[in-house]
């Protein structure tokens, strides 16, 4: 059983001067305040978050080969992939297919000027209806799609 050794406490407290006690009192006050902030943040975040297991499971991103295998067979003979960050406009070249490396965003990636081809690299396949709505309305049709959320639209 755990029994604190109070004899040590007596010995240890002896040389403590008033200044030391005052400093430790302030220190402990600050520690309690800081712990309180930690605790309140944790409590507030925990209460405001609704947990569901599918969110974490769907965050696993499938591997490269499976994700782009179909797309490779369609585009590789004529063009090449480039990767693009979401925030920067990348120069457009003929047969240069730019694909976002980051798969979270339901983002339109690049309109290829020559072939009127769009590649969508989406988080989930169902997102094409919202992300591609504008292009589908303009007469683009889904030329290729797979279950990972990769779509090729063509006009």
């Amino acid at each position: 059983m755990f029994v604190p050794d109070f004899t040590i406490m007596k010995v240890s407290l002896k040389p403590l001067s008033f200044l030391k006690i005052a400093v430790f009192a302030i220190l402990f006050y600050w520690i309690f305040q800081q712990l309180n902030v930690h605790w309140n943040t944790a409590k507030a975040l925990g209460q405001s978050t609704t947990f569901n297991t599918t969110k974490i499971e769907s965050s696993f991103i499938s591997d490269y080969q499976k994700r782009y295998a179909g797309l490779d067979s369609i585009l590789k003979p004529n063009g090449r992939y480039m990767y693009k960050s979401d925030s920067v406009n990348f120069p457009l070249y003929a047969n240069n297919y730019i694909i976002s490396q980051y798969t979270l965003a339901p983002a339109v990636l690049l309109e290829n000027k020559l072939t009127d081809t769009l590649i969508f690299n989406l988080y989930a396949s169902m997102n094409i209806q919202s992300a591609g709505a504008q292009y589908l309305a303009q007469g683009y049709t889904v030329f290729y799609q797979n279950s990972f959320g990769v779509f090729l639209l063509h006009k």
Partner: protein
Amino acid sequence: MIIIILLLIALLGNLCLKAVYSKHFKALNINLRWTMSYATGLMLTSTLFFLLNRISIPPLLIALLLVAGIGYLWKRTESSADQYNPMNIRFPNFQKKNWLSIVLSTFIFTSLGIGTYLFFIDTYNEPHGLNDAWSYWNLRAKFIARNPSGWANAFSDLYFFHGDYPLFETGLIGFIWSITGKESIFVPAFLCLSFYWMIVWAVYGFIKELGSKINAELAALFLSLTPFYVVMLSSQYVDMQAGLYFLMAVGISVIAINSKNNLWYILTGLFAFGAGWVKNEGLLFIIVFFACLKLYLLLKDRKNWIEKFKYAIMGAALPLLSILIFKLWIAPTNDLIQEGGDLFSKLNDPYRFHFIADFWKVKITDFGKWIGNPWWLLLIYIPAAGLNVSFIKKHYWTYAVIIGMLVGFFMIYMVSYIDLFFHLSTSAHRLFFQLLPVFLFIYFASLKAPFKEA
């Protein structure tokens, strides 16, 4: 799976250190032994993966080689006369502990526990980390995982996602993703969580080894109670990692100077150059750290400093080679250098100087997001505890490292091409945070125990 891999990496580091340092390593406290092991294991894994990948060895074979290395070192340790079992961990005897120590340890674990709980909620809400994590660090790891043989071509083409940032964390994540065949978000997330615990543990271990136990506990508590530390934990940025390697390099060199065993300088080199493999700020650290150490050794030990630096360069071999290959052949030019413009006129601009100084004055007190200004607390603690004069006399050069780093950071802001307010507001707090573990180590090691320890 990720936890098993991280444990194996720590074991690799532990066995390597045991093989090199033998009884000197065993003489250190257990906290220091395992944090050093983990930092060493991660650095060896990251640099070896990068270097072997450059000679076209597939990731799975690299993993097998590392496991074989662990097996060999384990066998070698077992068969040696000096039997050593790294799993033989003694649990603390609570009856022998001081009451204050028990209270402070409880606070530390409570604080770390709450931090870990916050980590799980934050990671649930932001599974890919904050902006820089998914748009730079983890993004580049996907290139490595998806195309282990051709990723380097993409890095040199695309400079806008910071292809020049060093590959310590990116390489590790890419390596683990490629050997497990799954781009699991738990890899970068748990790496960050491990660093969160590891830095507090390392600060505690170093101060306990070189100062007093009560100060070690206070330092660990101060760090774990820093709210910004928890923000960094779930951000998946690499500022914590840089902080750990800065701390390791300074701490090990203090041990090296104290022990007069030149072999410790191998580890100094590994950690100091390792910091340069973690983040670009680490390159500044290499210059500042070795300049301060060299000046100190020249003053104290003029005859043998070259001998000591030889050991440091020996230890630095892997990260140095990795940095050189990466920076010379793979990475695009750093944007701060490429877009530098007229550096001289920027350096002579008093407006920039005042703007940065004013911003720093505010930021330096609140970068940790503490309640109030904790520096007053640290200031009044100095007379309460008393100065550890022998440490200050012997290791005053460590203060120069902190000052040198701050001057270096200031100069970077002076010549930055980015909008000054934007640059400062997005990075100054993280730069200060990188120096916080080293600062806490130096501060608390420079003080005596506030009362006689039982």
